């Protein structure tokens, strides 16, 4: 099980920065990224984010892990731009995707989930007037983060069970039992939340 994008304890400046600030920077970077269209600008942005990894003392290996799942998708996008004749465009687009993913991962790796959730809850507070319960939003977020490894575990179980019975994996033969298990898990999780006083 990889520790993709999860909090890495530490005491660096980036770890101590307020979660709200970090989320704000991340959002701003996302918006600003549409303004970049030269290869050297992207290189600078990538350099800054990688500098952030150094400041947070997160090993290069972790940075590589964050972008590895994207290789195929990014590769296809790059290929498309190269074929349509623009090397620079290919570099700008793939570089930006990698930079933003690395930035998001850097924020999650240096921010405790509770702090992140609190920051989101704070951002949602003005929405209270239109009937949104910020605490609920925060809880959903934390539950979502917690559920990722659980569902990955369930998927591994389904795959192992099918291999053991010598079944070749058709997407449907895989999806149906996975959905059934996930729903059963969600049910049990709901019971546990009630038992643990979510309604208090």
């Amino acid at each position, binding site marked *: *099980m990889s520790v993709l994008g999860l*909090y890495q304890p530490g005491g660096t400046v980036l770890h101590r920065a307020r979660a709200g600030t970090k989320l704000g920077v991340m959002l701003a970077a996302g918006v600003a990224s549409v303004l970049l269209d030269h290869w050297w600008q992207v290189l600078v942005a990538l350099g800054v984010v990688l500098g952030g990894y150094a400041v947070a003392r997160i090993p290069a290996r972790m940075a590589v892990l964050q972008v590895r799942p994207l290789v195929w998708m990014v590769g296809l996008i790059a290929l498309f731009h190269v074929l349509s004749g623009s090397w620079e465009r290919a570099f700008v687009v793939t570089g930006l995707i990698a930079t933003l993913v690395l930035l998001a991962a850097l924020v999650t790796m240096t921010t405790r*989930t509770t702090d992140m959730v609190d920051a989101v809850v704070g951002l949602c507070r003005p929405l209270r007037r239109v009937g949104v319960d910020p605490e609920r939003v925060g809880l959903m977020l934390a539950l979502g983060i*917690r559920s990722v490894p*659980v569902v990955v*575990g369930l998927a591994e179980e389904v795959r192992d069970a099918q291999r053991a019975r010598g079944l070749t994996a058709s997407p449907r033969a895989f999806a149906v039992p996975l959905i059934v298990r996930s729903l059963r898990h969600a049910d*049990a999780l709901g019971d546990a939340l009630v*038992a*643990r006083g979510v309604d208090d």
Partner: protein
Amino acid sequence: MPVIDVDRVSHAYGEGSNRRVVLSDVSLRLTEQRIGIVGANGSGKSTFVRMLNGLVLPTSGSVRVDGLDTRKSGREVRRLVGFCFTDPDAQIVMPTVREDVAFGLRRRGLSKDQVAARVAGMLATYGLEGHADHPAHLLSGGQKQLLALSSVLVTEPAVLVMDEPTTLLDLRNAAKVSGAVRDLPQQVVLVTHHLDLLDGFDRVLVFDETRVVYDGTPASAVAHYRELMA
């Protein structure tokens, strides 16, 4: 010890032709500190213990914990009765160990420092202090169940209900969990298929086909259960 009053409780799931009775007219008064429950799969054990904290409400009859009716005072009852499920993955609700233990203490009017101190104390008791900031999914099965237990006990319930807490664990981890339960000051209601966990219990109930068919000491109850299953 708290007093749990189960008064002529019956329960059925489903409606019409799907209706299925899973508990028939169960009446009990539970006052002992250690109460065990054994019985075949499907005999109604889980349904019964889920009634003790109001997770399931009886179709007829009533359950009261220290006088509080689960139907009318669900929240209060759930503060009194902690619940530990079989699958630790389904009851760990926060991403990291520390956050999960702290979850039950929100809205209890405690300061951040008070919460941190209670969480740290709990983690130390169950040997999880080195894992406080680790994601819960990196723990072993036994550690996960100890985390689930810590997260329930940190709220200081008067009763702890456990539904097959060791069924998914190997023997060593099962021993760790049962060892942790042995010294608790709480009233404990434990459903289990690991019969050795019932050593030293005050009272053991045997469930069979929707009813309590035996109620006595661990030795006599286990003997009765074995005979029933033979």
